[in-house]
Each structure stands twice: as C-alpha cells, then as structure tokens.
C-alpha cells in the first residue's frame, strides 16, 4: 500500500483528515490504540506527543510496518509505502525551503518481538535548511531487530540537521542496525546526532559513510551508554573530497558491567585545504571493554586531519571535585557520564 499525504493533515491510513485521537477511537479503535501505544513509547524515547499531534510541524509516525500518521508542511513532502517488514519512505525538501520547526519522525515497535526495516531516502534541495528530530522507540523489546537503510543527498548550499534518539527498554533484547550513505554537495552542510543513552542498548551497529564536496561540512555525533552485555559498534567514514571541505566525527560512549564499545572511524582529506577531526571519548567501568580505532588518510599536501581519543575511567580530579560537593563515587560517575553524553 502506498500512501502520500498533503500539507496540514493528521490522517489515519483510512484517510480521515485533521481529527484527534478521541474521535479516531470511535471510528477505528485498532488504529487509535496502536497510535496511543506509539505516543506513549515516543515519550519514553524523549519525544513530545503533543508536538507530534499538533499539526503545526511536519511529522510521520511509523509503527512496525504501518504508517499511522503523516503531517506535511510547506516544501516538505513525505511519501511512505508499507512493506512486509517495514516501510519505504522518501522525504523530499524543495529547494530553498526553510522550516521553522524540525520535522518530527517516530519509528518503533510496541511489541516484544519482530523485525522492522526502514528504507529511506532524504533529498534536500539546493539552498534548503531543514531539521529532523527522530525518535526510535522499542520499549518492550525482548527479541526485536530494527534495520535502517538510508540514502541522504544534501544539495548545494543546503543544510540538513538530523537528530535521532533511541529507547530500547530494559531487557537488552534489541538489535539496531542503521546504515547510511550520504552525499553533501558544494557548500552543503550535514549534521547528525545519534543518541542511545537511556535504557539498555542491546546490540547496536551504526554504519555511516559520507562524501563531501567543496566547502561542504559534515558533523557526525554518536552517543551511547551500554550496560549488561550490550554491544556497541560505530563505523563511520568521512571523505572530504572537495577543496575546503570540513569534517568532524565525535563519539561519546560509556560502558559498564560486561558491555563492549568499539569505535572505528576514518577521515580522508582528499583535497586542498580540507580539514577533518575525530574526537572520541569512551568511559569504562567494571569489566566493560572499549576500543577506538581512528584511521587518518590524507591524499593532498594542503589537507589536514587530526584525531584525539580518551579511553578509560573517569578522571580522578573530576570525580573528587563532585565528591567534594557531597556526592558518592557512583553518583559522581553517573553525573559525569550523563553530562558527557548530553554535551
């Protein structure tokens, strides 16, 4: 089933425009109940349901393989097609569009088991400026897999900011496998932030590759907090192919118990005055393990790429400074980690 919605409509898949939950409950109790469950899950992931239902911001709500609601705003088109195990979505932002509020996306599965595959394409037109706020929520995951395959094209002088927060519940039975390939055209800008800092991680493997043209800018941030036997892996590659292109890869991870965090990042400086930097901080507690493997490649004598990494325990001075305010060691570590993941 292919569904496409127009501006300003909050709709069910049965095509009832502009109606609120209470009315929908009467017309389609199954849909309303799924929607309500997703909104509850959305809030657990840090989202604000009233914004999603407000009708003033662009949004899409996808539960398992159902497109529950879409709201479009001027210049932002969201086409979604339900698949056997997920949804295929194409999001197009018209050239020159500047959205006042970020487009809100909600993906998730309310049940305990299953597979959700999201295939998405983002086309950001020349000179556009758009933000996305995505919440991926799997609050009851016991044996669930979420696969995302995204293609992103940021047009010349366009800006795309994409922030994604996850919530996987407390069981650790989640697998999250997002793969993204992006192209940033001349003068374009792409900023992404992936956040998985509440609840358990389960297994997470992020892959992100991006090619950046002249004067383009890319900033990739990933943050995760693992416990139990959680397994975090980040693979990111930034190729600065055009003159004056700039890149930043920033990773913040904390692991405790028997959790594992592996961060593999590559930054290539392939053109004159291209500048890149990789910055990784991982905090290890108990029997956890952290690894950072930065790869620096420079193919032009006027390019420059740097990296810095700090892996290990919380610094003694930071710890004792907070303990001198009366916090216990565990409280101090928790505040330092949460600050690092928030910062």
């Amino acid at each position, binding site marked *: 089933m292919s569904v496409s919605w127009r501006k300003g409509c909050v709709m069910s898949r049965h095509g009832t425009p502009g109606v609120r939950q209470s009315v929908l409950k009467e017309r389609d109790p199954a849909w309303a109940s799924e929607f309500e469950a997703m909104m509850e899950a959305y809030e657990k992931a840090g989202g604000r349901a009233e914004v999603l239902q407000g009708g003033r911001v662009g949004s899409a709500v996808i539960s398992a393989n159902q497109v529950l609601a879409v709201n479009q705003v001027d210049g932002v088109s969201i086409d979604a097609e339900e698949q056997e195990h997920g949804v295929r979505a194409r999001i197009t932002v018209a050239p020159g569009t500047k959205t006042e509020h970020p487009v809100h996306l909600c993906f998730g599965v309310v049940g305990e088991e299953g597979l959700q595959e999201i295939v998405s394409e983002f086309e950001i037109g020349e000179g556009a400026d758009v933000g996305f706020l995505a919440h991926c929520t799997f609050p009851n995951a016991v044996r669930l897999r979420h696969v995302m395959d995204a293609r992103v094209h940021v047009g010349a002088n366009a800006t795309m900011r994409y922030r994604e927060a996850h919530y996987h519940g407390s069981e650790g039975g989640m697998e999250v496998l997002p793969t993204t390939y992006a192209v940033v055209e001349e003068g374009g800008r792409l900023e992404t932030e992936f956040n998985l800092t509440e609840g358990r991680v389960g297994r997470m493997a992020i892959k992100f590759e991006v090619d950046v043209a002249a004067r383009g800018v890319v900033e990739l941030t990933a943050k995760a907090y693992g416990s139990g036997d959680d397994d975090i892996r980040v693979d990111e590659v930034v190729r600065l192919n055009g003159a004056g292109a700039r890149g930043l890869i920033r990773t913040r991870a904390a692991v405790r118990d028997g959790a594992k965090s592996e961060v593999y990042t590559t930054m290539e400086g392939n053109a004159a005055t291209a500048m890149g930097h990789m910055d990784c901080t991982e905090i290890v507690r108990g029997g956890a393990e952290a690894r950072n493997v930065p790869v620096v490649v420079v193919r032009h004598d006027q390019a420059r790429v740097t990296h810095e990494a700090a892996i290990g325990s919380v610094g003694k*001075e930071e710890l*004792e400074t*907070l*303990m001198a*305010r009366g916090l216990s060691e565990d409280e101090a570590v928790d*505040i330092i980690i949460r*600050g*690092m993941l928030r*910062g």
Partner: protein
Amino acid sequence: MDRALLEVRKVSVRRPGAEVLRNVDLTVGRGEIHALLGLNGSGKTSLALTLMGAAGYEPEEGRIWLDGEDITELSVTERARKGLTLAWQAPARFEGIPVADYLALGMDEPTLDRIEEALEAVALAPRAYLGRSVDSGLSGGERKRIELAAVHAMRPRLAILDEPDSGIDVLCLEDVISLVRRMADEGTSVLLITHRDEMTSVADKASLMCAGSVVSSGTPDQVRDYFARRCRPHADLLGSQPWGEGAGGAYERVVAEGVCDE
C-alpha cells in the same frame, strides 16, 4: 573558649619519591579566615588535598579533626557531607553539565534564587552563565569564579580555597576578597591558600608553609614578618615546582640546606 573547627596534628604524607607533608600542625577556628602562605612547592596544595581526603594523599602519620570528630579515615564524600569542601586550584571541566546544575549539586535545597545569588557574588551575570556548560568553553578565570560560586552555594562549615586569586585579573581581586569576607560572615570558616599579600589582608590568622611543614602561625602581620626576616628561597627552586618530574631530589636539597631558617 570555643573548640577549633579544624585541627591537624603531626600529619605526614608521602607521595612516590618524596615526603610532601612533614609533621604538619594547623588549627582553624570557627568563622575564621585563615591564610596559608608559602612558596611554590612548599606543600600548600598537598595539605589541601590531604584535608579533603583525595586519593594518594592519605597520611602516614598524624590525625585530622573536624569539629572534634576524627575525619582522618573518611572518604572525600563523607568529609564533604560533614561540611568540608575544597575549591581546586585548577578546577576540573565537565562536558554537558550546565552551570546551574553544577552549583545545585552541593546544595541541600537548591533554588534558582540561591544559584543566581551565588553567581552574582562572584560577579558573573546569571543570565549569561546558568545554561552554559562547565566545560572548555569557559575561560580559566570564568571557571575559577564558578568554582568559588559552587563552594559558596554549598554553605560549607569549612571551605578550603586553593589560590582562588590565580587566573583572575588584579582588577577583579576585590571580588574574590569580598566573597571570602561574605562566606565568613555567613558562618563558613575559610582556609585561604594564596601567594598574594593583598589577599592576606582579609585573613584573621595566617600560617606559613615551607618544605612540607607549617613553620609559623599567628596574625597575618606576624607571619609576613617571619617570612621577610627568616626565609630565603633556595636558588635551585626559583621558578621551579619541586613536585614535578625529578622533584624528590630538589625537595631533599631544600630540607637539607634549610630554605627556611627555623
């Protein structure tokens, strides 16, 4: 006569390669501002860390009492909960912790009014700082002021301020002096570690440290006089920090050759 708030008796601390404190005696009274003076490397910061219970600064000998209670074996947290705290000389940075939250950490009942008041007391405009992170985005001077504000907001019984004037320009020295006075007026005793004469003007008492020991205590004038008449910096130590690499040797020479003429 009231019992002293802090009493330190015969405290010695050894760090790898050197004895950094030797038979230290110190008394700080209630509501007192006590200046702790001494050259670089004389042991002032080591004493501050020992009093706070920092790891690696456990006394080999001697005892420390806070309000009559022996705190020698207590952790940093336990000492803080009993009303002792320290403003570090080079305060740590914290990514992602807003100034407002940082100040609230040590307060029993944090309120925005009290947090704003603490920032104003160190001449920082609350509106400009409340939401900023206590990270590398702050200058050294700003970070020092926020540390002082955090200690002030905590309303401790005894605040150890380790060189609160360093990294703060001379024009703003009066702000720091006012803050120290205000803390004392509000009932906090202050152990004020400083190099600057201007800072000692605020103190009720003073002690002089040399080569890991307290060699003189009295009024600030008495201690300044003692320093002027009887102490001479060792040539090898001028411009150096004995606790750095190879410090052990330098320290031993100071003791052997008598930097302070006792």
